[in-house]
């Protein structure tokens, strides 16, 4: 693996793993899928491709944060506010 990018990939993995703890379908489900996804791409060596995969990972991070926020917002809205 390209050396400077390795640190970025590892950090991305750690961030996703951390976020996955709150996944609605279960932290284990998420962790298995995460490992499979990273393992599938472990032989990629072209730096451009690696950067593209990293940005795809960062997109997933944003999607997860949005998912968690919306889930919480909708649950609280349903519980505390009269639905018309």
């Amino acid at each position, binding site marked *: 693996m390209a050396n400077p990018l390795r640190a970025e990939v590892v950090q991305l993995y*750690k*961030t996703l793993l951390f976020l996955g703890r709150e996944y609605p379908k279960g932290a284990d489900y998420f962790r298995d899928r995460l490992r499979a996804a990273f393992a599938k791409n472990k032989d990629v060596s072209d730096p451009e491709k690696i950067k593209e995969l990293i940005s795809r990972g960062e997109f997933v991070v944003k999607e997860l944060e949005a998912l968690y926020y919306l*889930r919480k917002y909708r649950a*609280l*809205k349903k*519980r505390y506010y009269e639905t018309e």
Partner: protein
Amino acid sequence: MSARVLVGVKRVIDYAVKIRVKPDRTGVVTDGVKHSMNPFCEIAVEEAVKLKEKKLVKEVVAVSCGPQQVQETIRTALAMGADRGIHVEVSGKDYETLGPLQVSKILAALAKKEQADLIILGKQAIDDDCNQTGQMTAALLDWPQGTFASEVNIEADKLKVVREIDGGLETIKINLPAVVTADLRLNTPRYATLPNIMKAKKKKIANVKPADLGVDVSSRLEVLKVDEPPQRQAGVKVETVHDLVGKLKEAGRI
């Protein structure tokens, strides 16, 4: 501005967890159950941090009352951008009976000690749904209050608060220092990311006891019992309208 904001955060059972009543009916099962920061408190922290980013306030202090575990909640607030934390140690029986009155006395004492100019709290906790702490704190300090805030702006030396009330929105202008309680639509709380959590480990959390603040945490309330809400009865399916009418007559409805 040299303003200091005090933000109260409460550690509660996570909003997504299914609540179970203890078999002895004295309370709710909390052992081994996932806890996190009260969602309205997250919104309060986010608002305080936003004010700091806009350079309208200088320091954000996160406060929580409870046993050792509430330090996790304070750390989350620090990871979201608070500058330092204060852990008011309350444990055991005192913690079980800790309610809005005691917390508001603690917050009022801390506000005076830390010379805070603004207190932001969540409007209510999702475990007790009291919706009292903000109001009581303002009363004890004799400060104005902007509760159910869905928008907060600092204009000159005053606070403009848009409140969510039955029937719409109310805009009020109040003097600083003041107490604000956050409603759901005030903002979108940021997620405490891993690098921020690491950075937050360096921020200080001070330890204080209620006695140091001259606050008596004994409660005048006693919980008699805690029950689950009544189970929903299963519906009955009928074949024809005739049967439906018959069943309704049986139930004495017609």
